[in-house]
């Protein structure tokens, strides 16, 4: 019984990686790489013109990025499945990308066999999520897991958190809020505890990741 060839569009920001993966994928008889893209825009455009069966999508790509490219391809090409190949296992991304229309999600830590397998699975109309990512998503569904840690903060804690995340010193914060330095320090340690971080920089990074705080752009 002859199986149809699966046509693949390969998206990755590194040319040498695309080149190597193309050869590795083409070694599998059923798979054929029909195009390569290095940016989000290019991925969208080639999906439209080549109508591949599967897009292997790198998330960290220049331009509109992997998330937006996934959304546009999923919206425009109903017959194209998208398998995300993420650079780092990150707890925020799988849900967003699957919501955006991806059918598969793996990390770059997988082997070529797993990629080939994932491609075949999504072509059958099923979803494929690698074990490490699935574990993470499962953990997020447990009590307290899915909720943003910032939702647990009181109004005052949130205020102090935002000022710390902007880079203000304890002294500045205490002056602004008319509270003693000691009180601000108490708030800070309570924030560390509630957010599971160990210092101000970790706190600020967490806030930026969750979109609670932005980047300071002053000179």
């Amino acid at each position, binding site marked *: 019984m002859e199986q149809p060839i699966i046509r693949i569009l390969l998206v990755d920001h590194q040319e040498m*990686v695309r080149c190597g993966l193309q050869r590795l994928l083409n070694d599998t008889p059923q798979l054929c790489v029909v195009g390569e893209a290095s940016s989000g825009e290019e991925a969208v455009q080639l999906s439209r013109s080549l109508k591949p069966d599967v897009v292997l999508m790198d998330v960290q790509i220049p331009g509109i990025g992997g998330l937006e490219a996934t959304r546009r391809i999923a919206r425009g090409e109903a017959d194209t499945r998208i398998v995300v190949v993420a650079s*780092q296992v990150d707890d925020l991304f799988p849900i967003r990308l699957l919501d955006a229309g991806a059918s598969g999600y793996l990390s770059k*830590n997988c082997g*070529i066999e797993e990629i080939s397998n994932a491609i075949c699975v999504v072509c059958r109309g099923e979803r494929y999520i690698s074990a490490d990512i699935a574990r993470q998503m499962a953990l997020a569904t447990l009590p307290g897991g899915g909720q943003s840690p910032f939702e647990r903060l009181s109004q005052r804690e949130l205020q102090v958190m935002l000022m710390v995340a902007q880079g203000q010193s304890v002294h500045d914060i205490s002056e602004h809020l008319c509270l003693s330095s000691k009180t601000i320090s108490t708030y800070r340690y309570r924030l560390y505890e509630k957010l599971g971080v160990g210092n101000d*920089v970790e706190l600020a990074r967490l806030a*930026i*990741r969750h979109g609670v705080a932005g980047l300071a752009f002053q000179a």
Partner: protein
Amino acid sequence: MVAPTPSTQAEDNPADVLLVDSRQLVRAGIERVLSDSGQLTVSDVASNCDEAIRLARRQRPQIIMINLPGSGVEVLDGASKIRRQFPDIPVLVLAEESDLIIQERLLQAGVAGCVSSLCSVEELFAAIETVLKDERYISDSLAWRLAERRLPGHEASPFDRLTHRELQIFLLVAEGKNTSAIAKELCLSRKTVNGYRNRVLQKLHMQTEVELMHLAIRHGLVRVPGTI
């Protein structure tokens, strides 16, 4: 830039490459491209620079190629360590194009070559060939940007004022590491690390560590995972 000349270095005797990359799939792809050339064999792969040092001790490669994702801190630190351990083995680093400061420091630390991680396969081979001949390789765009920064009237980078050690500590602080962790990582006392940290704050005219982090992110020196 140096055109990829046909290698006279015996095709029957390919050069051993030690590839450093934390991601299995990326390693597999690069390994395939290198070995298909017939001029190179990936003799070993390491997922970080410490592992690379252990492997290189056992089986000396002819070149060490570093392609690590994420921030430049680990790369700068790791590549410097490798250089100190193996001054005779050329190190080629694939760096984020925007990390100009990191690339400059890498060259100062003695790496043989620096190319953008987005470079073409052709340029990658040209770079490898150059450093295997014991020459240094700098990509056109990096050379141009480094030269431009030396022109009169060009605003100096705030990081120029930092020593290598200070820059290293600055980057680790910006990544969210605390004093104890930094002290442990760099084999320094906590007091010494605090001294460096205070000097960095002073030199960059900043009050808090979070301000340092914002500065580092603005200059593309560190990234916050999960943000696009």
